[in-house]
């Protein structure tokens, strides 16, 4: 549940601040596309389909429920997952961080949602 602060919030920041390179037209275009970058994007996941859909749903609800409060969101996700399929779940919500962890197979979800990276995994 480490959250490392980031100075650059892609979703919220103006296009110029985010991307220096490119012309004005490119900037506008990128801004448009960035506005659409607020859907859950699963990067790595080895869960069962059913569980994955549920987990993604949980993450989205939790993050939307606690905007800006990553700790609360992470806690919310962890508790939901614990309830759903047993204990020893771990959740990281943050804008920028590095990690190395050991997870039980079939129990990992690494996804982006907006400007956030979210990792949910199980390790007992």
């Amino acid at each position, binding site marked *: 549940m480490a959250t490392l602060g980031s100075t650059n919030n892609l979703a919220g920041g103006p296009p110029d601040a985010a991307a220096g390179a490119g012309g004005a037209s490119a900037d506008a275009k990128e801004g448009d596309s960035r506005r659409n970058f607020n859907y859950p994007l699963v*990067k790595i996941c080895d869960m069962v389909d059913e569980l994955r859909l549920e987990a993604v749903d949980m993450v989205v609800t939790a993050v939307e429920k606690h905007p800006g409060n990553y700790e609360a969101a992470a806690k919310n996700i962890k508790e939901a997952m614990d309830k759903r399929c047993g204990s020893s779940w771990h959740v990281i919500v943050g804008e920028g961080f590095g990690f190395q962890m050991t997870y039980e197979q079939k129990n990992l979800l690494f996804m982006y949602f907006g400007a956030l990276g979210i990792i949910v995994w199980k390790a007992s």
Partner: protein
Amino acid sequence: MKSTRRTKIVDTLAGRSLSTSSMKSVGADPEVNTGGGEDWLPSKTLLKPPGQCILNEKELNEEFTRILNANNPKAPHNVARFNHKEHIFKASPNVDHLVVHFEFDGYLVFKEDAINAEDGESSVAPAVETEEKKKPLLRNQFNFSERAAQTFNNPTRERSSNTEPPPTRVLEDEVTQFSIYDAYCEDALQKEKAAKEKPRAGKGQKDEEKPGILPSEAHNEDVYNKNAEFGKSIIIIERMANQNTYDDISQDYKFWEDASDELGDRKSGTLLPLWKFVCEKTKRKQVTAVCWNPKSPDLFAVAYGSYDFSKQGPGMIACFTLKNPSYPEYLYITDSGVLCLDFHPQHPSMMAVGLYDGSVMIYNLQKKSEGPIFKSTTSKGKHTDPVWQVCWQKDDLDDNANFFSVSSDGRVSQWTLIKNELIHTDVIRLSIEALNNPASVIPIKHDEERLFDLAEGCCFDFHKKIDHLFVVGTEEGKIHKCSKAYNNQYLLSFEGHSMGVYTVKYNPFLCDVFLSASADWTVKLWDHNSSKPLMSFDLSCPVGDVAWAPYSSSVFAACTADGKLNDVGSCL
């Protein structure tokens, strides 16, 4: 006190209670005893109390008489106590005369009190208190022994097992805004690509998706219908299970000996019901006809319908096999009640069916279809009244299968199966007018008028040897002998029954003789060349059906409306 014994020497003395002898010894001077033989003993010294008066010999010998009584001389005699009742002092007559001269605490103790004595030799009182509190158990103190048993303690053994830990993996990554951005961009690109490709490969993709998910309905319908071999094995297994279940019935079928047969009373016997064929779907329907399959000896068809005019509903045809009494092999549902059916003697899968609504149908058991392969329609000469009997005939000259039907509308029709059509020919119209004048040709009238003139046919049977000959029983009680060759003309009429004729049956051995069963309680035996019956059997109940024995020309069975089966061995 319990624990201690006190030895008391109690004397009640009057004055100085001293015996004279003791007085003497006490009074003797202290002297050294030097008696012979007792020298080695330590010398006795007599101690005199101080102040003892010294008496001479004479005084010593003087006798004093003392009387001992129970009064204490030292006790006060004049004790006065205040009497609260009378408020005066009163002299108390009761004076304590008890004097204790010697007291000695014994050293013997009870064994069980040893502990008490140990821990408190000096202080007896506290020990006594605890004794009273404890209230000892009442035990036999002489041969009591404490008993206890101890079971073996099983030797313990340690055992442990280790499960495989869930497989784990290590993941290492970084989350930065750049990586998030890149991931989203890549995703957007891929989506664009997919959107471009979709219109092109849209169809192909759909086809690919389909086989992945099995449609649940088709799965339910199943393998059973699609895979013939699997269906076959399932049927075999079902029959095996039934064979196990109904084993006793098979045993009965082969080896049953009816005890009542030996009694010699041939007037009545008992029948043992063997298999019972029940199908949930045919509930509340009447069995109207049963027909054995000519080729498969274990297969038979049952027609379900209703004889009640007011309660007509859909009918049913069920083909049961003795090998599986639990469920019919084939089950067909018809629009109207089924009244009769017949298997084709050469093509055992062909089944002709007559319905209450007047239609006749052909079912082919080989085709697993729901409906009949042929059905008579109104435009093609469908009967207008219930069809009471159908009967297959030999294939005609063109090798077309054909069958006959008789109906209450007074027609006997021949139906021929030609390719995919059912062609009908009216063989005869059972005219009432013709009854009076059997030889006369029936004048051809319009159909509507004719309807009222026609007699209702109930049953018919074909001559076993002469193909074109047959007899028809009617509702009026007449039986007519007809020929396929002569349309609308009776060869002979048999009069004798007063009510409807339900069955006519030619004898399989004696070809010219036939039986008829009627509602007028009689079964009549006829020679088809004479108009009078040969014999008449009164069964005192409407006779529903009659059948010749397959093994004898002179035995037949008849079933009556009261539920009895009569086995008549007639003496022809």
